[in-house]
């Protein structure tokens, strides 16, 4: 084990269902997700003759940047690449918001009831994550499988071996939605992914999804961008953070850096999907916030989480 790096295990015991109820941010996010999932399904099912003329019929499939990228490699056309380019630009300047707010597969994951998360009296163990560079630096930084898969899929695609069809998150749902055509196998595939979500809500997203890996890589490009220039950002005030680990326990993407980091300001974590769950779970007012161009959209410590005792939350170093 390299110098300055140590394993830390954080155990979080919840005595109440704090952070579980339907509050503003979750209602807002779920509404956006369900509306877009509805639009996605409408587009998938509406693509029958005659073409609706509703441009573009399958916006979600076209906007998925891996598909757009490989399509553009065969012959660039701005009209085809535009939705993906806009999405990638927004990802660079704000982060991987697609995953928490738009992706049809991500929405399906969020609709799956999860075990061991936020249950009354339940105990959830956060998988030990090495802290990179020791105290005061960001943790995480583990090269997840999804990046290897992303490189593999792109290289094989370039070599004429198509694998993207199997891993593209939008297509996985599209095929399952059109099971009347391709049969039940795509539905079973989707169901298996959803089954994994019962235990780790965004297992696929964080460890495997090549599109998610591309989004994470893109968001790392805009890491240095100031909060004021970012349409959607996660802000931390280090002085107010009590390092209780509740944010890490609440994160569906299993990100522990929010708690670990000693930085203030826009966090710009490559894997963060800007869902706001950590902000909602944080008991300290002003410690975490979702912001837009510097203005606070949602601040921590305003709701039930603030009134709840921090008792029962232990960080075992």
């Amino acid at each position, binding site marked *: 084990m390299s110098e300055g790096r140590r394993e830390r295990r954080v155990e979080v015991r919840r005595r109440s269902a704090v952070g579980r109820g339907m509050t503003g941010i979750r209602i807002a996010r779920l509404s956006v997700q369900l509306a877009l999932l509805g639009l996605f399904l409408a587009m998938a099912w509406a693509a029958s003759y005659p073409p609706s003329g509703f441009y573009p*019929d399958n916006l979600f499939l076209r906007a998925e940047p891996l*598909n757009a990228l490989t*399509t553009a490699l065969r012959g660039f056309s701005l009209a085809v690449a535009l939705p993906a380019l806009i999405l990638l630009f927004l990802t660079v300047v704000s982060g991987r918001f697609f995953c928490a707010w738009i992706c049809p597969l991500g929405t399906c994951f969020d609709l799956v009831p999860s075990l061991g998360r936020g249950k009354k009296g339940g105990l959830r163990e956060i998988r030990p994550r090495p802290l990179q560079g020791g105290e005061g630096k960001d943790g995480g*930084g583990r*090269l*997840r499988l999804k990046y290897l898969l992303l490189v593999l899929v792109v290289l094989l695609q370039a070599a004429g071996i*198509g694998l993207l*069809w199997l891993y593209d998150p939008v297509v996985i749902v599209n095929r399952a939605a*059109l099971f009347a055509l391709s*049969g039940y196998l795509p539905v079973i595939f989707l169901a298996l992914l959803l089954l994994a979500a019962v235990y780790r809500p965004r297992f696929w997203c964080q460890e495997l999804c090549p599109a998610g890996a591309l989004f994470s890589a893109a968001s790392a490009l805009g890491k240095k961008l100031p909060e004021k220039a970012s349409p959607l950002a996660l802000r931390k005030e280090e002085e107010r953070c009590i390092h209780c680990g509740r944010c890490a326990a609440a994160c569906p993407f299993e990100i522990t850096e929010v708690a670990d980091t000693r930085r203030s300001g826009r966090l710009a974590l490559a894997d963060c999907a800007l869902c706001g769950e950590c902000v909602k779970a944080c008991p300290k007012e002003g410690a975490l916030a979702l912001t837009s161009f510097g203005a606070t959209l949602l601040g921590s410590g305003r709701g039930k989480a603030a009134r709840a005792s921090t008792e029962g939350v232990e960080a075992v170093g």
Partner: protein
Amino acid sequence: MGKLWVSRREFLGMAGAGAAAAAAYGLFRSRQDLPPLRPPGIASEEEFSAACLRCQECVRGCLTGCLEPAGPEYGAGKLWTPRFNPDLARCEFELCGRACAKACPASLMSAVPDAEVRLGQAFITRKRCLVWGQGKPCLICYERCRYGAIEADEKGRPHMVPEKCTGCGACQNTCIAEPQKAIIVYPLGRVPEDEGDAGGGGRKRGGV
């Protein structure tokens, strides 16, 4: 392992999953002697089967319903890719505005303009044809071909004019020969040479 790498257990897990996938891939080899026909306007079969997302949008979007997802019999490399099946319907690429091409999120069917579309090549297996094989009057295919790719001789027998055939499938769709259709659209480059006898053996009715 270095700090940027996955744990050994994860690596072994992935290697195992990869091996299982490779084995499954091997089991799903093509059992067809001919590649599937494709929707009109693709650049090449290799590029198409590699790049197609199997999203089924073209199958849904088709005017006539002539497309279907290829089953496992074409191998894992082509599973669920759209297959043009003239037994379902003919392709109306000059009427539908190429609905399949417009529906495709990967823009895979826009390589060729209408005038140059060739989905395949029709071929008459004479011994199965009602006129050639049994001396009965028919010529339905001749009447249905709107490209003048089938001509009738003075005895009422159909002859192919291959250079005029677009592979639209109208003839195959309508052929009434039993139990196997006599006129079938073959993938380009895989058309039987010996007019009269080739392909008369083991193929199922209409199966390509």
